[in-house]
């Protein structure tokens, strides 16, 4: 049986147009071209099917009896195991059927790919917090904070100046007795006058760690009870969190206000597959 070239061509045009759509999407898209390509992708399929049905399917006309609505239902039984007419002819069109499946699949792919429009590529967003060296720490009212503003065993939520409310930059500022600190190596200068800055985002699943047990000097997450030891660099001591709260290196500027001297000790928030590898 000869495969009709017109149908083949239609399906191939559809497939090429769908592939074109995929490429165009990756390249950034263009409304008119997208419309035209989608038109060809759908039209090629439709035209191929139309030519196939009108010119290459030899199914004889049949007569079905009609009952008037006022008449009783006929009891005629049909043999529902007999093959449907035209099946044999259809199953011999192997090439066309494959092309049809190919064109349909490519079109489905082209139609699915705009799902990537739903959100940006995360890139290195997950590794940046919004703190820059020199940023002053300000409280929720936007006022810069001096060590003396925080009582020992006190706690305050702070942000970089000008970025109050920025989720990734939320930091708890805790003041403790300097002598009791035993921070990890290399962080000796990070806590001027006993002022500690830790990311407020729980490293488990991201709730705000605002529950401070001041006598025990532990931070606790209200969501899943992960507990962090403030004196040793917010290391987890109970609960489901596996990672310490990242610490923000602090210093005091010429006017006596607390500033950050750089990024946190680690990416903030819950872990993900490449958290230790970098973007």
């Amino acid at each position: 049986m000869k495969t009709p070239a017109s149908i083949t061509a239609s399906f191939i045009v559809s497939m090429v147009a769908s592939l074109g759509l995929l490429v165009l999407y990756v390249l950034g898209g263009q409304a008119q071209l997208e419309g035209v390509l989608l038109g060809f992708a759908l039209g090629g399929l439709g035209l191929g099917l139309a030519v196939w049905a009108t010119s290459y399917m030899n199914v004889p006309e049949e007569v079905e009896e009609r009952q008037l609505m006022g008449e009783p239902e006929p009891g005629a039984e049909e043999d529902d195991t007999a093959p449907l007419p035209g099946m044999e002819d259809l199953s011999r069109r192997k090439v066309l059927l494959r092309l049809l499946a190919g064109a349909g699949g490519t079109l489905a792919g082209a139609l699915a790919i705009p799902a990537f429009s739903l959100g940006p590529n995360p890139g290195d967003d997950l590794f940046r917090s919004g703190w820059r060296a020199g940023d002053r720490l300000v409280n929720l009212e936007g006022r810069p904070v001096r060590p003396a503003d925080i009582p020992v065993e006190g706690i305050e939520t702070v942000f970089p100046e000008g970025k109050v409310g920025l989720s990734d930059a939320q930091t708890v500022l805790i003041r403790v007795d300097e002598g009791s600190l035993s921070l990890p190596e290399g962080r000796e200068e990070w806590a001027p006058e006993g002022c500690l800055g830790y990311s407020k985002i729980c490293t488990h699943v991201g709730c705000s760690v605002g529950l401070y047990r001041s006598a025990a000097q532990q931070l606790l997450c209200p969501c899943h009870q992960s507990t962090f030891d403030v004196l040793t660099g917010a290391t987890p001591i109970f609960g489901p969190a596996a990672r310490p709260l990242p610490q923000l290196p602090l210093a005091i500027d010429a006017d006596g206000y607390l500033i950050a001297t750089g990024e946190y000790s680690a990416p903030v928030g819950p872990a993900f597959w490449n958290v230790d590898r970098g973007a």
Partner: protein
Amino acid sequence: MTRARRVAAVLLLAVPATAGTKIVASAARGQDTPRRYTQSEVEAGRKLFQAGCASCHGEDGEGGLGPDIREAGAAAAHFQITTGRMPLADPDAQAVRKEPAYSDTQIDQLIAYVASLGNGPAIPTVDLSGTNLSTGAEIFIANCSPCHGATANGGATGRGSLAPSLHPSEPVIVAEAMITGPGQMPNFGFDAATRNEIIRYVRFLQARPNPGGADLGGIGPVPEGFAGLAIGMGALVLIALFIGKGRAHARGGVES
């Protein structure tokens, strides 16, 4: 009267402490400014202290089993003793609210003694005039709700400690807690105005304004889920049992 106004009126009625009410630390004692205690009060307090407190806090409040309280001040002493938290039988247990162990006079004497030990904070004055419910609510939710809960009903804070419910707390007690940071509570360093705003909202919550009906404890989805399953699903199963009568399907049963 529009519906909005009616709702507002209902909500306002639920709050006895509206702006303009002045709540003084203790009506009986009436400390408005840091109170001067007489030498005889201090001396009587010292005796009480040595009998009931010195075993933990040391002969002169320098600490021992318990913390050094020389800088605790009248505020901490008032908070701890009037709420019955001190004296504490077991120094490892969390101090919780109970009946005070001393009479009002004795309490005054003890406060006088503790205040005389150093320069700790005096009993604060709570003044709700000019406060704004919304300001207090915002600060409360940001700073207090992580431990005490959004409805001030209290919460677990780990290691067996708990943030108590604020519903039985008089305004001055709430203020003292904020100043002294008792137990595991951090010291927030709020100024007097901020404290008053927060207390205004605590007073609002204490009135339990629950426009939606019974609050089921006001601690969120756990009791809600329990009520949904026990009351809701329970009632529906009973209804199904009632409607699905003719349940003689156990083996050998007969269709009724």
